[in-house]
């Protein structure tokens, strides 16, 4: 029973980090109609940003997460202005393709830049809080609990921000209809920039949260990126709530799958494949996902 609870909690922690990563991705999709194939690289960059903020600036570990989020927000804004913005004009005919290609280029660029600059070997940032919480026979490292807690805070904060603040509502308005938003005086292009910055910040934050738990490496974003793609489809592209549900679901499946399936090689591969299969099934039978709105083409 305790083994089950342990797996459940670990799965939940991973799931919340996945949810946070997916939330950033879905925010970018709902506002810009762009699937950011560079999302995994931003996640990884956040992890490294936090590491160096702690190391070079002497910040406490949790503040490193905040620093990473700020740095990634700035980077996201820069990338959106320089590379994505030209897409909105009349020059670019196939906007879907353009977005896929340039965000893919971002992944190639950042992942390899990380290998070159930081080296291919793993680094371990300092823990948020050393020690473990012991409940019965379960041993739960504080780091995981704190990461989960911060993820929850960020997710709740995000949902509150989108529902209650003027800026958040403006983002939501653009995600529903950019023409209508423009009519009531919202500048869609400014919203695109902000959304991309925010999405990048969320990815960076997720990476910074996971780094003390699972270590940093230039390829650390590859698997979470694929999981994020899966989650946003299952949860519904454009639905933050869907990302949360989908993220937790996937995290739990992974936790239980690896814990209970006998053959470790098969277990890891098939729990990862489960998510991909869910994506396939979702797109075939319920393309809007669990909570999403019908897809609109980027004009």
């Amino acid at each position, binding site marked *: 029973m305790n083994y089950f609870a342990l797996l459940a909690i670990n799965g939940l922690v991973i799931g919340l980090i996945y949810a946070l990563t997916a939330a950033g991705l879905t925010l970018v999709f709902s506002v810009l109609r762009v699937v950011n194939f560079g999302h995994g690289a931003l996640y990884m960059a956040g992890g490294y940003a936090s590491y160096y903020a702690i190391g070079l600036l002497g910040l406490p570990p949790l503040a490193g997460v905040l620093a990473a989020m700020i740095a990634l927000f700035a980077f996201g804004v820069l990338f959106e202005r320089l590379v994505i913005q030209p897409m909105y004009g009349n020059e670019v005919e196939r906007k879907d393709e353009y977005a896929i290609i340039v965000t893919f280029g*971002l*992944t190639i660029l*950042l992942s390899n830049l990380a290998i070159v600059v930081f080296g291919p070997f793993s680094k371990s940032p300092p823990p948020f809080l050393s020690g473990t919480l012991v409940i019965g026979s379960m041993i739960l490292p504080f780091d995981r609990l704190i990461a989960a807690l911060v993820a929850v805070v960020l997710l709740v904060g995000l949902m509150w921000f989108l529902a209650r603040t003027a800026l958040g509502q403006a983002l939501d308005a653009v995600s529903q209809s950019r023409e209508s938003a423009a009519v009531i005086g919202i500048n869609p292009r400014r919203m695109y920039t902000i959304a991309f910055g925010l999405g990048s910040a969320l990815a960076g934050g997720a990476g910074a949260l996971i780094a003390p738990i699972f270590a940093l490496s230039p390829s650390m974003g590859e698997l979470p990126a694929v999981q994020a793609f899966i989650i946003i489809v299952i949860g519904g592209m454009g639905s933050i709530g869907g990302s949360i549900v989908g993220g937790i679901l996937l995290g739990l499946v992974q936790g239980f799958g690896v814990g209970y399936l006998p053959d470790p090689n098969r277990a890891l*591969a098939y729990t990862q494949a489960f998510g991909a299969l869910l994506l396939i099934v979702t797109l075939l039978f319920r393309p809007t996902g669990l909570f999403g709105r019908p897809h609109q083409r980027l004009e």
Partner: protein
Amino acid sequence: MAMPSRVSASVAVQGILLLLALLVPLASGPYWIHVGAIAWYYALLVASWTLLAGFAGQFSFAHMAFAALGGYASSLLVLHLGVTYLPLAMVAGIVLAMVVGAMMGFLVLRLSGPYLALFTLAISEVFRLILIAEEQVTRGSLGLQVPRLFHGGSDVPYYYLGLGLVIAALLLMTLLLRTRVGLFLRAIREDEGAARASGVNTTRYKLLVFVVTSGLAATAGIYYAHFIGILTPNMLILPEMGLVIAMAVIGGIESLPGAVIGAVIVFLLSETLREYGEWRFVLLGLALILVQRFARNGLFPLIERIGRGRRQTQAASARPVAPIAPAAERTHAN
């Protein structure tokens, strides 16, 4: 439709490059012949993906999966099912890939844009994970030993085989694009609904392009498998697909010769710059972003256009490059 001078200049350039390609093994050592032979693997993948994504607008991330399917199918037929005649196993691998390609094409009929990309990415991942999981059969990450096609130490036969495959594929695809099928594929890319309203059976032609390009990808995978002699699930990882996409975009996503040239140049550069380690891929990522941002149709068409532009300022009956609209409006006013 094409202006004669444009066609002949482009064809002349391609002819020269073909001649160079034929002569390379005579002037190079075994290392570069080996590199060249691998370059043809990428060229075949990139050219067929360009047909699928650039011309037909189907941005599929499952292309490497078909290459792997072909390679593994062919190898496993020989190793586990006792097919001793290698060409038979190879053809079977291609046919299998085409059938699976048709099935996937059917599944993605209603998908487009990022949904198509994510769906095909998921399919590719599932296949990759199955290859890893079922290591009893596939040897997983350890690598499957594959019987080579030619024996003896030299890679020269592989080089010419690869080049031959690339040329054959280019001819096949170019001929296809010249027929009405080519028009239909481009119409589907431009606006599928409008194509249907214009009488095009979009289902039939989308399935066709998936079948053709899966077969070509499988051919590339089979060539690679029986050349290198070892197969791992690493041929399917996302960065490999990314490399193919990068080569296509840089060379020219709407030009088949551009795709081949892009593949060869990018691969040769990455080999030349090997001593700089991962910096060459940083450069690749940067190049991809810059080309897409500033020369959307790739470098080869850009170079073609520059060449044409220079000739146009000299030609007497130059076609106007500036927007036609204002002049036409004036005509209408009469």
